[in-house]
């Protein structure tokens, strides 16, 4: 009895002390959100930052993943059998609608399927305010260079074949070849799981970190969205502010 009461107390205090946002984001806000839950005794699926809501720690790195599938590069040197990704399709809210309601290949009737830049219907405002001035490619490319003209819930490869939203790398790699190579070799991008080159890894696909519709962030132009930083470390004993850090740098005068 006492043990039960004690455990109960622990749980109650734990939940009150450890109040974190129950929904966290994995790499950037707005993509790959994950709900906090327990996946074992004392084992949460993720631990999140109380300040920013970013996932800091994965209890199970392969939670909710599917096999990544092949890459269209014949000699791609990675462990095919053990590469997994988290499906993106269900994260993109309107995706099912796009392909079935509006762009079925038949509908909307009379809409051109060519790649010439033009204004889009109002529904796309949230993605691109002015579709004739897309930031990605700065006018060199247009929506249908990436999105399949007939299957709008798919992306497109070099041969006009549809590409799943779960494997955007196949489409992105069309232009970003060097980055794609680094990504295949694990140099670019994020992977979690087992570190051995033969180990199981969850690969983060391009769009989990980069927002393809907004790749330029003002003057920074780093390809990475603005992140709220985690809190600064504690100042050393006796130091009240960090103002001293912003004073005269360098080795002093003369």
């Amino acid at each position, binding site marked *: 009895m006492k043990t039960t009461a004690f455990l109960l107390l622990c749980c109650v205090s734990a939940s009150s002390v450890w109040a974190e946002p129950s929904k966290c984001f994995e790499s950037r806000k707005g993509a790959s959100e994950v709900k906090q839950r327990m996946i074992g005794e004392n084992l949460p699926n993720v631990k999140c930052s109380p300040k920013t809501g970013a996932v800091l720690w994965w209890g199970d790195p392969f939670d909710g993943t599917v096999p990544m599938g092949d890459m269209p590069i014949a000699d791609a040197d990675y462990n095919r059998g053990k590469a997994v990704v988290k499906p993106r399709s269900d994260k993109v809210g309107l995706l099912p609608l796009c392909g079935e309601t509006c762009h079925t290949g038949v509908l909307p009737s009379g809409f051109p399927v060519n790649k010439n830049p033009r204004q889009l219907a109002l529904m796309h405002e949230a993605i691109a305010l002015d579709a004739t001035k897309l930031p990605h490619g700065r006018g060199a490319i247009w929506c249908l260079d990436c999105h399949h003209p007939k299957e709008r819930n798919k992306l497109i490869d070099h041969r006009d074949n549809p590409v799943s939203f779960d494997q955007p790398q196949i489409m992105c790699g069309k232009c970003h070849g060097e980055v794609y190579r680094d990504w295949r070799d694990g140099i670019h991008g994020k992977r979690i799981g087992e570190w051995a080159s033969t180990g199981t890894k969850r690969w983060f696909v391009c769009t989990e970190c980069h927002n393809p519709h907004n790749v330029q962030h003002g003057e920074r132009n780093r390809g990475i969205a603005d992140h709220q930083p985690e809190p600064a470390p504690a100042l050393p*004993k006796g130091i009240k502010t960090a103002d*001293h850090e912003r*004073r005269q740098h360098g*080795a*002093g005068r*003369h």
Partner: protein
Amino acid sequence: MDKLKKFAVDYVTYVVKGSPVFYAWIAFLCLLILGLLYGTFLHATDGLRYTGLTDQVHDGLYLANFVFLVGVAAAAVTIVFPAYVYHHQALHKVAVLGEMLAIAAVVMCMLFIVSHMGRPDRLWHMLPIIGIYNIPHSMLAWDTLVLLGYLILNFVGGFYYLYKKYTGEPLNNKFYLPLIYVSIVWALSIHTVTAFLLNTLPARPMWHHSMMPIRFISTAFSAGPALIILIFLIVRTRTRLWIDNAAIDLLATIVTYCLGLALFLTLSEVVTSLYANTEHAHGLYYLMFGKHGFTDLVPWFWGSVAANIVAFVILLTPHWRKNYRLLALACVLAFSGIWVEKGMGLLVPGFIPTPIGEFTQYFPTTLEILVTLGNWAVGFFILTVLLKGAIGILLGDIRYVATTPEMATSASAGVVTAPESV
């Protein structure tokens, strides 16, 4: 064996008796030691959290005093060396007092290390055989070795001399002189190794220069004899033991030379570092002028420079040096000036900035100061007791008197003042 027992009894009986001033002094020291006990209790129960130490500046008052006191301990050689190598008569008579000072200083060093350590309860891990002793790689292991050795050398040497003096037997020079000569070299080694402790760390560019050992020795041989001169002057006025002017004058000369050398080395370091003023000079720059708005150590540095220069000027002028009031002032100035320079002035800026460029300050807490004072009080307590006993023996107040007939023959010689042949 009986003689030894009697020596211990006589010694203790003599030492515990004293004037009201003596008791007042001991009571005062005990009060400070109470502070040390309180601080040590807090350190033991809660760790070092009540100190001003941080991950940035993780060695402070405790280690600074350790470094300084190693110098004081080594400085006993400034008496022993002239006494036994140059046969300086005046110093020869009181050489044992220098050894007593060395014992007290080494004990203080050890106390400061214990205060500094995070886990003094695990000190046994350093013992060879049951623990691991990282020789020859760890300088701290070497330092422990030389300090312990020095303590033993001085204890054995000092008390052997006193015991023989007590019994009136002649010294066995085959045993005693090698001990003295070894301890002379050993004295240099303790301070050299302590310098190596700091200057073998290229991560701390302010310390990483080959001048450190000689600078340590020169400062030690000015602060140490300065303290000894002060003690001699006090002994002369407060006890019946008369210490010749020749002894004090020779020590004053040593202080003069060494202080001059120390000032010169400071100047060399400042010019070498600040002429190019690379990133490696940040620590020294912070010490001398402050940096990033942090200036706490600046008055200490210039204060210590001023004290050392004034002391040097007084000492350099023969007329002033012979005036023992001015000499005392110069000794106080030199001692405190070097305490600042070598303690806080050397140790703390070594940590500022950190190796990855963080500027911060170190604020010693009241508890830290309390513990520091307490450790000094223990040292002075030991020093008082040792000096009192030694002076009692030198004066002949404590001496062996035969109580049994079979001892009478040897004891009869003992009553006579021991020959000053050694």
